[in-house]
């Protein structure tokens, strides 16, 4: 074999190895045996709080659903992003169209690892990069609560994504880079209990960072600008900076934040708007100490300047 032939052979081997490695690295990773063994049946009563903290109904119930309709989780509230249109699936108890046939293990693998029962990688439009920080016991409680909700038939339409984001397998590589159960904000060992509780609610089930943190080119939240606000995924607006940094909410007291989450009124009596309306409705359903904990955490996070570009000025008649 000539040198050229050898080189060609080597190249084939390298490419094949790369492809094989890529295939292996992109494989869905499920929960480990230890976590699974620790997964005990949950409590539906406690799970309702997690359901509200997680805002499940905001995307999986019909748009602007109120009352009992919030519990009909047939999916379908589209999320239009630069990667394409994500359509939240039916997560009602319907065995065929929803998740009624899922076991607790199936559910925990979806919530904490972004893996479907059939072993597919789920897209992180489903905010499992945040849910991955949840306690398995809370996931079990949520599962128990969702078991009490109605079955609604009808599959939601498929996602409409552009290439290469349409390749589900690729999400596996993304998860290797970004999926972690570790908290984002490091707190001192003697940090107040409410700040720690707030960190859990904000970074875990509440998944506040998914909208309030800017994303890099590949869609990962930029941890160095955690909660600094971001260009909205949908439309041409922004999601505000909720750190105490410049442009943020440093001039809001903890009481102001808790009151906003309860009533929807800002300290200067403007009202909640946009996508936050649904979030605030959920936050209002939480126990008061949860809202106070979220406020305590938001007062304690590192300050950052706005994570979105300033508005073009002057903007008359563009």
């Amino acid at each position: 074999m000539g040198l050229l032939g050898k080189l060609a052979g080597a190249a084939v081997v390298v490419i094949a190895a790369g492809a094989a490695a890529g295939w292996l690295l992109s494989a869905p990773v499920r929960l480990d045996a230890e976590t699974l063994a620790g997964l005990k049946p949950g409590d539906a009563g406690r799970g309702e709080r997690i359901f509200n903290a997680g805002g499940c109904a905001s995307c999986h119930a019909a748009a602007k659903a109120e009352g009992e309709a919030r519990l009909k989780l047939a999916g379908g509230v589209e999320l239009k992003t630069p990667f394409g249109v994500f359509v939240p699936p039916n997560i009602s108890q319907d065995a065929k169209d929803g998740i009624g046939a899922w076991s607790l293990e199936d559910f925990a693998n979806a919530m904490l690892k972004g893996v479907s029962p059939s072993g597919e990688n789920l897209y992180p439009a489903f905010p499992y990069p945040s849910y991955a920080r949840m306690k398995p016991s809370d996931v079990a409680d949520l599962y128990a609560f969702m078991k009490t909700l109605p079955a609604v038939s009808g599959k939601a339409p498929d996602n409409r994504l552009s290439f290469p984001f349409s390749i589900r397998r690729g999400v596996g590589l993304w998860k290797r880079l970004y999926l972690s159960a570790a908290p984002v904000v490091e707190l001192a060992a003697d940090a107040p209990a409410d700040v720690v509780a707030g960190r859990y609610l904000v970074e875990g089930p509440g998944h506040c960072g998914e909208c309030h943190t800017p994303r890099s080119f590949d869609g990962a939240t930029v941890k160095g600008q955690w909660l600094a606000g971001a260009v909205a995924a949908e439309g041409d607006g922004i999601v505000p900076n909720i750190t105490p940094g410049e442009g943020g909410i440093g001039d809001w007291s903890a009481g102001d934040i808790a009151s906003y989450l309860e009533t929807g009124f800002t300290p200067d009596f403007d009202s909640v708007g946009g996508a936050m309306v649904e979030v605030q409705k959920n936050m209002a359903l939480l126990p008061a100490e949860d809202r106070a904990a979220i406020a305590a955490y938001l007062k304690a996070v590192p300050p950052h300047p706005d994570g979105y570009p300033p508005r073009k000025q002057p903007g008359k008649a563009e």
Partner: protein
Amino acid sequence: MRKLILAISVLALGSAAASADPIADRQAYMKERGKIVGGLAKMVKGEQSFEAAGVQDALKQLEANAEKFDAEAMFPAGSEQGGDTTAAPKIWEDMPGFNAAEDKYLAAVKAAVAAPAADVDALKAQMGALGAACAACHQTYRIKKG
């Protein structure tokens, strides 16, 4: 040339008669609402003692403010962009929907005026209903901007 200048002046005057700056005007209008609501919220929060006459007065102010609302005059064509407006394009895409949302708010205010809260708990509930009407409109017809 003189005619041209005249024509331009007439045009400028014409638009001035509608409103010199609809964006600034509608922002001031909304701020007025916030201020009235703020007075009521002080009582709910206990920063001010509950006073039935004060509640009635504030609710009537809110009603007078709400009745002044005029979508076509406050959000005329051409005021979609500019200044620091946070009006969503949806307003101009769906003027009937925008008006309907405002009508709901007006109805909520009128309901409150018809049966003003007699104690703090009732006021809290009343504020909840009003706040929901504020949020329902802001959910669709306003966008946050940098």
